[in-house]
């Protein structure tokens, strides 16, 4: 065998080996390959029967969308399967229940979220906060209304470390069932939160990472209790700010 032929053989064998190795790697999405990702989340706080509009990059964000999904009753949750691509999401709820038309005072609208890149199969979580339009200003229906009545604290995990990615759910009844009255933003790495309320009163609170429905196995969940097994009420007056309302959350088994 000549040197040249031998070299070609080795190079070819090398390339073949490289090809075999790529067979064991996770699938990379490429042109023409059918990749479907599920984008799911909730429109806060929570906004049932809102519409989530999905636009592909390049489409008019005020025009007809690629797809529209109605959020679930009570929970404001939605889910949509999308192929690989670049997308934008916006939630809207018109009080006249129409799916098209100008957003007028009284309607709800989120900021446009995107570009969101989908490159591989799997699940992606996307929560949105929709604000109510009041005249030319926006009013948050979520818990970050800047009133002067609020409470704050830290959420910890079972190791005592600050827990990111959870929200405070606020209820006005002991059982803490059905829809929460208010929901905070997600905690950051420091586990801290502050939640503004439109008025004082008696509230019951919990911390959880998943929005909607009873806690399921694998969810992070914790109730506020002041050293007892009963959930403790938070009683705050108008204009009051309570601090150190801390909760420990752990996995639901």
């Amino acid at each position, binding site marked *: 065998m000549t040197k040249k032929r031998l070299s070609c053989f080795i190079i070819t064998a090398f390339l073949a080996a490289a090809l075999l190795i790529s067979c064991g790697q996770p699938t990379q999405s490429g042109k023409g390959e059918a990749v479907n990702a599920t984008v799911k989340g909730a429109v806060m706080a929570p906004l049932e029967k809102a519409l989530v509009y999905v636009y592909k990059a390049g489409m008019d964000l005020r025009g007809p969308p690629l797809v529209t999904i109605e959020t679930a009753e009570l929970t404001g949750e939605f889910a949509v399967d999308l192929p690989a691509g670049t997308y934008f999401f916006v939630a809207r709820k018109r009080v006249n229940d129409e799916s098209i038309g100008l957003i007028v005072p009284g309607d709800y609208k989120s900021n446009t979220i995107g570009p969101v890149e989908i490159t591989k199969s799997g699940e992606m979580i996307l929560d949105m906060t929709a604000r109510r339009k009041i005249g030319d200003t926006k009013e948050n229906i979520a818990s970050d209304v800047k009133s002067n009545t609020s409470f704050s604290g830290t959420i910890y995990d079972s190791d005592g470390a600050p827990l990111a990615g959870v929200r405070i759910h606020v209820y006005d009844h002991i059982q803490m069932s059905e829809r929460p009255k208010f929901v905070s933003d997600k905690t950051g790495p420091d586990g801290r939160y502050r939640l503004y309320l439109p008025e004082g009163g008696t509230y019951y609170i919990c911390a959880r990472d998943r929005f909607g429905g009873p806690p399921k196995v694998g969810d992070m969940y914790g109730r506020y209790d002041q*050293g007892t097994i009963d959930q403790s009420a938070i009683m705050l007056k108008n204009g009051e700010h309570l601090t150190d309302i801390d909760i420990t959350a752990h996995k639901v088994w």
Partner: protein
Amino acid sequence: MKKTIIALSIIMIFMISLCSCYKEEFVSVEMLKNKALSGDEAAVRKLIDLVDANDIKTQSEAYEAIISVGAKAVEILMDELEKAGGEKKEYIVAALGMIKDKKAVGKLVAILKGNDKRRYAAAFALGHIADTKAVRALVDALDDNDAEVKKYAAISLIKINNSDTGMANTDIIIKELTRFFGSTDVLDKNFALSVAGEIKDGRIFDAVLKEVGGRHKEQAIWALGKLKDTRAVKVLAKELTDPDWRIRVAAARSLGSIHSEDAVTALERNLSDKNVFVREWAARALEDITGRDYEYTDEEGKAIIPTSLYR
């Protein structure tokens, strides 16, 4: 040239063998569960490994699969418990609780008494198994330095009490609680007072009443309300004038629970308390006792009926 060929061949062989390592066998949780149910020990161990998976979905599915395997998994779970740590250990402990096999009690009590950070899972599990052999350890855990341990110990004692339709379990719990309350070493009696209130046995009344004069006043008042013992009315009525508004609220709530008409006059006085929550809870308690609506003055000075806190 020869050296180059040899080197490239070695690299090629290495890369081919690397490739074969990537081809992991795909195994579903469902498949493992079915194997485990038919007695495959390796499948059980694999499921236990999967509770340590990176994604929550696999963790949860594996955990639920282990529980459905039930008694067949217990010995293996207890064996794996020796080697496991962190979240995996927590899941194993919780699974033993959910399977409710009393064989696991000894090991779980040992974990509860130890220093493991996640021993609150053992407290949780012992409540589900509901074996009275765990009562003493659970009562001692009511004074643990970890709030989650105390909470789950309390919940579990209540579960154990409620799991028996007779009095046998209550007798054991009362005996241990009485010992606990009588101890001078105990630092935190709040959770023990919660348990005392929830098991609703008059034998613990005196121990709870004594705590009204101590550091755990609010919780003792709460427990008296839960016990619904009319012997507490006079003491609770006196607490309606405590300088701390939280104590006045707790007293009102408890008097509402006890439903004694003897408390009505004292509660009516609290309708004009300076604190809005005291006024609110006095109105609620009066409604509970008399069945009539009572108004109180809210922060804006409006006369309103308290909203219901129950759905």
